[in-house]
């Protein structure tokens, strides 16, 4: 456990009890939204988490922000074990250091608050500054995200601003209390393509200048590639592949990662992607069968995959994959393209 790791999670789990609808009784089943993920992020670095909808990206992010209390595993923040912090003081201390950016900027700000009021909230909560100082702080925060002149935005309501501007405000709000860690959950997916880049570049710039540690959640691999040093690919609550972004994307090992990458369209009519033909039946995250979760869609699955869940093991330096085939058969299928099922 290197001292410089801001985030260190080990075997983190989040199991939700399953509710039955009409009579509201707990059935004892649980939904394994996140089922044992481990990773660490050094200070100032960023990790991208990708995967299809429902695979547990957001849940992971929320655990990292103490919005959910993990049902298993450990979570070290800045070297301290914060898996189950309870005391109000500790939570507040944590909250001052970890912040969040959301997918939908239109919902991320209280529609009844002016921008000024929204940015003021965190200052009030943490008792930062006097009334006059707070005005200055808000101003600085807005300027930091390139909203000039800041004052023109003070009294605007969210509905009077564009998505790109709002997302900047959201970033400003996250930054106003000087956090060291930020989770950005699909921060640009609601934005128009033309302005996405602006927000992304801004984030990149700010995290670098403030030495922020970030987790970037997205299902768009090309954005993760643009933003992150490390990438983790999740599938049904587990990380199936993790490592240096370039390495993972250029040299995917797990069949799921391969399918994912080959499905991403490219803005070039001449580079038509190959047909990905894996079944699109994703099993329900409730009561998953034993073995590899991807086994029913995997073109390479063998007997062992149905019995035993593969562990996340290193293949090359820092590049870990959870696949029996990759490890056992020693990259047997590495050159093959995924074609059929």
């Amino acid at each position, binding site marked *: 456990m290197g001292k410089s790791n801001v985030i260190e999670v080990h075997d983190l789990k989040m199991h939700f009890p399953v509710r039955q609808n009409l009579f509201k009784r707990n059935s004892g089943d649980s939904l394994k939204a996140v089922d044992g993920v481990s990773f660490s992020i050094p200070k100032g670095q960023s990790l991208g988490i990708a995967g299809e909808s429902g695979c547990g990206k957001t849940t992971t992010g929320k655990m990292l922000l103490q919005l959910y209390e993990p049902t298993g595993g450990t979570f070290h923040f800045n070297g301290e074990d914060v898996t189950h912090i309870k005391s109000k003081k500790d939570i507040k201390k944590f*909250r001052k250091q970890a912040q969040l950016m*959301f997918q939908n900027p239109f919902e991320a700000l209280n529609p009844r608050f002016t921008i000024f009021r929204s940015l003021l909230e*965190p200052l009030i909560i943490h008792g930062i500054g006097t009334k006059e100082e707070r005005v200055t702080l808000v101003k600085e925060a807005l300027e930091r995200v390139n909203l000039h002149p800041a004052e023109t935005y003070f*009294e605007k309501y969210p509905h009077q601003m564009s998505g790109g501007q709002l997302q900047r405000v959201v970033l400003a709000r996250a930054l106003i*209390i000087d956090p060291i860690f930020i989770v950005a959950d699909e921060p640009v997916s609601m934005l128009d393509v033309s302005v996405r880049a602006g927000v992304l570049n801004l984030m990149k710039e700010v995290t670098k200048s403030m030495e922020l540690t970030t987790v970037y959640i997205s299902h768009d691999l090309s954005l993760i590639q643009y933003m992150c040093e490390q990438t983790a690919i999740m599938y049904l609550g587990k990380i199936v592949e993790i490592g240096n972004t370039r390495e993972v994307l250029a040299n995917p090992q797990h069949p799921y990662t391969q399918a994912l990458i080959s499905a991403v369209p490219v803005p070039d009519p001449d580079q038509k992607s190959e047909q990905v033909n894996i079944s699109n039946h994703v099993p329900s995250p409730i009561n998953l069968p034993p073995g590899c979760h991807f086994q029913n869609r995997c073109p390479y699955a063998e007997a062992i995959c149905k019995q035993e869940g593969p562990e996340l093991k290193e293949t090359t330096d820092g590049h870990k994959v959870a696949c029996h085939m990759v490890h056992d058969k020693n990259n047997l299928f590495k050159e093959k393209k995924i074609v059929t099922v």
Partner: protein
Amino acid sequence: MYSGKNLWFRVFVRRFIAFLKFFKQDKFCMVGAIIYLIFIILYIFAPMIAPYNPHEMIKVDGKLLFNAPPSAEHWLGTTNMGRDIFSQLIYGVRPALVVGFSAAFFVMVVGTLVGLFSGYFQGKIDNFLMRVTDIAFGIPFEPFVIVLVAFLGASIWNIVLAMALLLWRDTARVIRSQVLTVRERNFVEAAKVSGASHLRIIFVQIAPNILPLSFLYGSLAVGWAILTEAAVSFLGFGDPTIVSWGYMLHDAYVSQALSRGAFHWFVPPGILIMLAVMAGFYIGRGSEEILYPRLKKH
């Protein structure tokens, strides 16, 4: 340009303007607000506007002036006991507004609090509060008022009490379902991540977003309260010392204004009740779309 103080003041002014705009925004809403405004003026100036004491039995030459038809002296005539109907009508605005607004206030406060808490805290608190709400929904309202008034005495305050005890239920349900959607909005999570306490999130972040809704329910409750008072009066459980519109209708009814064709007695209180209730509906933007916005269970 932006000194702290200056800013706070401007925020206040903006709020106020927004509030006024809320009324201007919609014709229905305006009509409702104007009706209320007129009633409030009547409330304040009743003694000046009403030519007689509403209880006074008017005598002319030592003889009771009963069942007088409308005239210049008595715009709406007199009752069978010689009381000036117009004056009663004017004074009737007082209990109407008192019952209406106080009942609405409690309904709003209780309903909003229950809705906020049960919507925000899912799980046990929610279950508990929703059970309580279900129970409140199982208690028939009019019978409850009647029993309560029979036990505690015929007073408009007991009607207010009965409403406060029961009628928060729809408000609570609706507010709750609204809170359920609001709490899923990201800014709530943002507040949490910023370290805001539950109470702060509920009252600072969520409450302003559902306030229009509870305000709306309040304005509807004004109407219910007035109607309930009238119904209770009609059934003979009304407060006999207070000249309310319900009391007037009741008085007219037992005094057979209908058979007598004394429409100047029987109709005006009914119309004023309708106006008061309608004003509530109108302020609720003239429709029940918000009244029962999807009683969908969550």
